[in-house]
């Protein structure tokens, strides 16, 4: 681990000032400390934001939900309001990492977490994300766990977050505070596809800080759920996953939110699947027909061709268990 200076920010103003001067924010630290030890990350100064007042979960005026950036994954997953309004978020959280890590890691940090691509984490391997221009060892390497959607010639690494998949499905936004003030971005615009600059992962400006994520109000009743498919039953990243939320009224699907994880370089929204569902009546056949489009546009690599079919089945199964056939 490279040496670094350390300060604990006493308030937002102090944090932003240190961030503007190049300080790296640390919250839960579960990704950052790990990558610093591997020298993948080499910040010269850490700014500890853990005592900033960003720990609240509130219902917004419009009936949505705002989760402070420093709420831990464990707290968010157990929060009665999150559980009542958006079960899909709790399921995504509780299927992530381990109880220990969920006690440490925060909601803001979860979105910021970096890929688990083994070549990214191995400083001796070529990686355009870690070392721009060095190439991508995964393209010709062992790429079973890599992405099939949103990839480029430069990078095929997946975004590892389960939470971000649920948040993307629900059209969530990210609130940011920086030296130039406050702004809000849709999560799907905040997280960047690799293109030719895979080293640039978020639409963050220098010194900007995530203060909260907001989930918009959705028509009720809303049924939602998350399915994660992985190599072992617990404590593992997704091979494929599906976040689903459905609003059914009068026997007809009026609103459908679907996104996939484990397959994309960013949490992958599935608008074609959503369009197939809206206006239709729930049925086993409908779930299968809609899920058939889950892997549209996929570009499988040498070892991950199975993900396209697995993704379709993952989406179909989650639609079936969330939507039933009534």
């Amino acid at each position: 681990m490279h040496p670094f200076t350390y300060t604990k920010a006493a308030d937002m103003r102090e944090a932003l000032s240190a961030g503007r001067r190049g300080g790296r924010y640390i919250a839960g630290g579960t990704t950052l400390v790990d990558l610093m030890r591997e020298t993948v990350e080499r910040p010269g100064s850490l700014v500890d934001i853990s005592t900033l007042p960003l720990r609240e979960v509130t219902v917004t005026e419009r009936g949505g939900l705002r989760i402070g950036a420093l709420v831990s994954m464990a707290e968010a997953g157990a929060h009665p309001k999150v559980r009542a309004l958006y079960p899909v978020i709790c399921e995504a959280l509780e299927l992530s990492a381990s109880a220990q890590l969920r006690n440490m890691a925060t909601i803001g940090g979860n979105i910021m977490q970096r890929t688990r691509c083994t070549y990214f984490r191995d400083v001796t391997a070529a990686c355009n994300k870690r070392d721009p221009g060095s190439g991508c060892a995964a393209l010709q390497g062992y790429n079973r766990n890599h992405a099939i959607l949103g990839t480029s010639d430069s990078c095929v690494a997946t975004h590892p977050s389960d939470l971000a998949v649920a948040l993307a499905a629900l059209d969530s936004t990210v609130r940011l505070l920086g030296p130039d003030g406050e702004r809000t971005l849709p999560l799907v615009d905040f997280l960047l596809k690799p293109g030719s600059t895979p080293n640039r992962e978020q639409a963050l400006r220098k010194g900007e800080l995530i203060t909260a994520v907001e989930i918009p109000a959705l028509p009720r009743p809303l049924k939602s759920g998350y399915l994660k498919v992985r190599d072992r039953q617990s404590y593992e990243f997704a091979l494929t996953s599906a976040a689903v939320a459905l609003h059914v009224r009068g026997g007809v699907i009026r609103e459908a939110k679907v996104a996939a994880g484990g397959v994309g370089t960013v949490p992958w929204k599935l608008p074609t699947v959503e369009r197939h569902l809206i206006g239709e009546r729930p049925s086993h056949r409908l779930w299968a027909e809609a899920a058939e489009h889950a892997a549209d546009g996929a570009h499988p690599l040498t070892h991950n061709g199975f993900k396209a079919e697995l993704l379709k089945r993952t989406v179909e199964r989650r639609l079936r268990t969330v939507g039933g056939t009534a």
Partner: protein
Amino acid sequence: MVGGVVTGPPVHAAEDAVAAEVPPGSRVSLTVNGVRRTVTIDNRTSLLDLLREHFGLTGSKKGCNAGACGACTVLVDGRRVNSCLTLAVRLEGAEVTTIEGLAKGDRLHPLQQAFIDQDAFQCGFCTPGQIVSGVGCIQEGHTGSAEEIREWMSGNLCRCGCYVKIERAVEQAAGRK
């Protein structure tokens, strides 16, 4: 809120230290198993290394040193965490409980006793982390079924494969058996 200036020691003074090739360090006071301790440490020191190498508390184990195995699990302010991924410098004022802090004198913690009763270990390397994690699991209330215990204890790996008995030990200490 915008454009403030930090006063006091922070970033710049310490950057000079980096330039002078003296690894930046900090002073931190924390309570470990009820004992208040103050140390000056290299900022890179993990809580695990602080416990093992500075305080001689070698019960917490270094398995993967990457947050993947759980052998280093301790309680910080009552919550189970991976001490290998915790920078000690961040723990000003924190209360840390390790495996060494669970027994009351010669009386073992109920979960320690349960591990003996259920024969829940072979080599013993993961055991301190398993037990501290189990204490956290019980406190959190995730012991409603064997399945729930397995899921909420999944952050602790056991290469000897004692999972069945570990789950029974947690059940016993939780009062379900």
